[in-house]
């Protein structure tokens, strides 16, 4: 199949065909990152930046534990949130995939409905649900299960996980669903026929063959989670803050663009490292081209 793709006009037109896409990427990805890189070596001065070549920002980044600790914590939150999201998304996708096509289309539609509303609004919706005067506490109080409102639901890492899971669930469901739809049901029948129990069918056939979708979803949710801004800002309180929350402060109120650039680059490097790590297990080609 790869051979077939490579033939035809592949070698006649590529420079021209790739031009718009390449131009877009250069302008909006390569240039901004290059700028960040350059600025991260400049020096911050009162009310602005001084063009200079210095490692002082990276020294600060590494010497002040806050940034590294925040980076580690963000990675950890993103990791657990991603795992939880996949664990919820997989059975959900399997359930959708098992429906007849018409019903499946309706369910996919339902999965996509949340995108109609701003995710800021959707994230806010958790506050009246989980807060001290929120629905859950109200119910618990009325049922007499607690005598005082519990403040364990909101403004902590639990809430951030919940918020991330909730907002990014569709990004995991869709690629997994795509993989499962491609899975030949006869393979599952064949496994059952050969003596595999439902659990063994899942472990030996269904999961391995839907790996491209699972890893695709993992990468998407992880990238979105590790750089999450709104969710920790609204739901995280002080203990749930993540790395992306400090970057705007450095560029804004902090007026320290060079340090902000250095922290941004740290986030980019960590994110790329993770994608590379996951990708090296299956190959990104399988995930995004064939998966």
């Amino acid at each position: 199949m790869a051979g077939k793709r490579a033939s035809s006009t592949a070698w006649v037109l590529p420079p021209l065909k790739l031009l718009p896409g390449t131009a877009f990427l250069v302008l909006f990805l390569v240039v901004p990152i290059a700028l960040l890189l350059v600025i991260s070596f400049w020096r911050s001065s009162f009310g602005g930046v001084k063009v200079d070549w210095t490692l002082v920002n990276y020294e600060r980044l590494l010497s002040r534990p806050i940034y590294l600790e925040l980076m580690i914590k963000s990675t950890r939150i993103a990791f657990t949130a991603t795992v939880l999201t996949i664990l919820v998304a997989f059975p959900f996708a399997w359930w959708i995939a098992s429906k007849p096509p018409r019903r499946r289309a309706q369910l996919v539609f339902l999965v996509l409905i949340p995108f109609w509303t701003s995710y800021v609004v959707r994230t806010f919706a958790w506050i009246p649900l989980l807060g001290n005067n929120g629905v859950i506490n109200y119910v618990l109080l009325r049922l007499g299960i607690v005598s005082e409102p519990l403040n364990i639901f909101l403004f902590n890492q639990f809430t951030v996980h919940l918020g991330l899971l909730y907002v990014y669930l569709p990004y995991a469901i869709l690629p997994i669903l795509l993989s499962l739809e491609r899975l030949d049901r006869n393979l599952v029948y064949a496994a059952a026929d050969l003596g595999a129990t439902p659990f063994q069918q899942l472990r030996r056939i269904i999961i391995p063959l839907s790996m491209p979708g699972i890893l695709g979803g993992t990468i998407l949710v992880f990238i979105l989670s590790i750089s999450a801004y709104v969710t920790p800002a609204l739901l995280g309180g002080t203990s749930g803050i993540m790395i992306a929350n400090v970057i705007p402060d450095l560029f804004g109120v902090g007026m320290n663009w060079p340090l902000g650039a250095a922290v941004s680059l740290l986030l980019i490097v960590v994110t790329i490292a993770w994608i590379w790590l996951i990708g090296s297990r299956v190959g990104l080609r399988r995930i995004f081209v064939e998966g």
Partner: protein
Amino acid sequence: MTAILEIRGLAKSYGEIPAVREVSFDVRRGEFLCIIGSSGCGKTTLLRMIAGFIDPSAGDIRLDGVSILSQPPYRRPVNMVFQNYALFPHMTVGQNVAFGMEMHKVDAGERRARTREVLEIVELSGFEDRSVSELSGGQQQRVALARALVLKPSVLLLDEPLGALDQKVRRRMQVELKRIHREVGITFIHVTHDQEEALAMADRIAVMADGRIEQLADSLEVYSKPASPFVAGFVGEANRFTGTVVSAEGSRLVLKIGEGLVLPLPATTELAAGMRVEAFVRPEHIRIGPAELPEMTILAGTVRDVVFLGESARCYIGLEGGVEVMATASAESVTNGEIPCAGARVRFGWKTAATIAFPAVAR
């Protein structure tokens, strides 16, 4: 011979639409049974009910006298070869073959030995570490067969296993399957829409139509003594004539198939004057040429087309009144260059006993 599998009143319907209607039959221990029928006749549904993938709406399936209906597919001692093989693409040939044994907790040493043994039977020795995607269709077919056979099932179910192969490979695999069947001594139930394939391989053939079994008998009997017009038309090729029975020359009955066109009916049939009748004559029973014997049906017509088939040739002869008859010119006449040309007037005939007649059923 004892029955290994007893199917009793087995039925399946999807909503109001019946796929299989109260089918009952026995499968004999060690036999090669072919279930044939056109697509949608319920043969695959029947097979999948035996495998356990489809729950029947009614009836029972007994294996060695014990109902297996309550057993999920992974507990039934039957195995299936799937139409498109359903090989696990993420496993090697060896892993595919050993998968079932692994599920049945056979230890690693025995798994290897049995894998080697079964790959030898399907003539794929040394293919253990190959990826299934680099195999040809015929080889994948053999792996699928080996994967099911290695578990030594009581009954092996084959769902159109040769359907995706090209003609030459299919012919070879038919012979192979028969050899393997003899070698392993396992009961085979083979579903196919290809009646030629069934005739080539089966000990017995079950012909299905519209969710029912029209006939279940030895291959030879199904071919030579079809139980219904459907079977006569489906298994093998046949000329079909329809007409009304009239009496002629005293007690003799003939079939009037057109203006001035009558066919003598064999004496054995229980037909009466006035009946609508469907009669079938196999093309290979028809002799083109002057030979005339007392018990023969003789007709004359014009050759319209001749199709040369290599070892034989098929002549399409037009009769008065638009009826067309298909006749096989024998290998002998082909070698002697005696195939009639298109446009030639010919006399032809067949032994009247070769005519198979049924009272016409309203369809």
